[in-house]
């Protein structure tokens, strides 16, 4: 059920992107979208009776959960961070240039 929740989360992020006028809110919407995506990626590897894929004295490798989606999510999160950092800096430069965060006023100029 969580993968459906992940899809809904993604669409919420897109809803924010579609309707908001404030550019910082757009970046937030983008982040919500990416969190939803990462959640979906995690649920792909989930197995009901699996355990975390870390070998310790007490467990054995037979009942591991699929580690690959988790490795992919690691990279996706860091990339999402990189994009958000650049987007926020550009938003700040827009604010300095136009003095407002509202996309309609910016578009007008």
């Amino acid at each position, binding site marked *: 059920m969580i993968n459906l929740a992940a899809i809904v989360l993604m669409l919420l992020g*897109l809803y924010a*992107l*579609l*309707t908001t006028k404030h550019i910082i809110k*757009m970046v937030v919407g983008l982040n919500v979208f990416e969190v939803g995506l990462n959640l979906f990626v995690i649920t792909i590897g989930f197995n009901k009776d699996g355990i975390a894929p870390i070998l310790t004295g007490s467990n054995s490798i037979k009942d591991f959960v699929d580690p690959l989606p988790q490795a992919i999510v690691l990279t996706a999160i860091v990339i999402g961070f990189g994009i958000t950092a650049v987007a926020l800096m550009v938003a700040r430069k827009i604010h300095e240039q136009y003095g407002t965060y509202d*996309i309609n006023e*910016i*578009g007008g100029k």
Partner: protein
Amino acid sequence: MNLLSILAVLIVGGLAAYLLSKANKLLGAITTILTTVLSFVMLFGIKDQIGSTETFLYFNFQLTEIGWYFAFVLSLTYGMSAFYNVCYKDKFMYPNSYAMLYILSLGGSLGLFFAKDFITFFVFWELVVWTSAFIIPLGKSRRASFIYYVVSSIGSMATLFAIMWIYKLTGTMMIKEALMSVDLNFWPSVILFMTFILSGLTKIGIFPFHVWLPLAHGSAPHTFSPILSGGLVKLGAYVAYLSVAVFPSYEIFGEGWMYRGIPLPIYFLMVLGAISIIIGTVMAIKQDDAKKLLAFSSVANGGYILIGILMMDEITFAGGLLHLFAHAVASATAFLTITAVAYRTGTTKISELGGMIHRMPITYTVYLISIISMAGIPPMAGFVSKWLILQGLASKGLIIIAFAAFFGSIGSFMYVFRPLAAVFLGQLAPKHENLKEAPIMMLIPMILMTIITLTVGVVPKLVLNFIVDVQAEAGIKVVSMTGGALDVFNGYLDATRVFVIFGFGFLIALVLFLLMPKTRSVSLMDTYTSAEFIYTPELLHYAHDFYAPFERLYKNHPSTLKLYERASLKLKEIGLFVDYAFMNQRPATSIMWILIIVTIVTIGGAF
């Protein structure tokens, strides 16, 4: 001395002209004369090598009768007009590229006539198109060259479509085999025929595509207009020949709807030719700029040539090809004379000129003879060809087309007379008092061309022999000539006898003219009417809107140029819509479009 050597001379000559004229302009102009005249002479050298094939890189060439005939006509007009480059050398922004493009466009057209396969044909065709597209803006208007390029690219893209379609059907690119072995049922082959001939129509300037002709000829550099109307327009006739003679159009369309022996698609094209004759004549009468007037006359004569070639019987076909030669020479000469006048006076507007006969008598006589040939009056070559075309049309009983042809001939008297009366006759304006005759370099080609028109008019056999070879090659019944006289279905035409009678009549007129008392010529400008002082005397000059009453008949006529402009505006609006709908700088719009596409596809996928 073979096919490749001529093309090599032209291509190398073009590049050499570019470099030489960078050094000094006169040298560049002289190279243009040398290369074009050399190519004209070399043509006669290879007359006996008909059928020989050559290949270079992936182009392969073959010398055919029709190719030789067209090359002969074109290199003649190019050679004669090249003489003008010497006098016009420092009147251009880029003299060096003008010389190069001038020669390359001739190279392109010759390569086109000798092409054996479609790729070579299309490569040289485009070479001609973009070289001339870059010469025209050297003249007055940039827009003319843009419209010229668009209309001719409509034609060339349609022909490329037909070529590739044929390649898909027959698998070979060789013109002869490909066109022969096309087997489609009726309607697809009509589409193929129409798209293939389209580039010819755009080049000749037939009705829907005649829009660029007045603009391009009117505003092209003065020395290039004779080439445009004399030479480059004839390329279209070659394509028309290919699509009618080589492509077995009469057999393929044979079983479809026929009208007096002419299949439907070909008859439709002849109607288009007729319409363009009427439009060309009627619009030419109305023009005030001499070059635009002559441009419209090329539209009209293009119609004659197309009708002639499409008929494919021994009389009209020969008339069409002969008219091709006669019109090329006559209209080139007329343009050359107007250029000579423009060289001296700087303007080609008819209403601003007058009385050139007093200062430029030779130019006047040359112009007189060229318009006699253009109008189709007996002693000149134009008469023979128009007479043949009209004979053929009448014998086949095509009433509508024949009516248009007659209308065109009568109309041509009116529009050729307008520059004659307004530019050459009448009073000399004070500012043209100390005008001199055109320089020697301009007089040579003018006189040569008039001699050619006269001799062909008197002895049409000279050119008809070439046409006979072409007809034999195309498999049409050959026009029969008994001792210099052409036999036509109701009698024969002996051009030399006609010339003798006209010459005798001319002599009598000359004697009468000399004996009669002289008239007193009054200077036009000191007009005086009932103590009212005229501030703008030139308005009363009769050259000013010469045919006003006739023009009022069709004052607000529909113009196809408006049609093209409206279409281009429609396209621009679509472009604007794209700019507005997709390209505003809000992320929301692009994401909205992505989501709409994804939703539509998911809905489609679910069912």
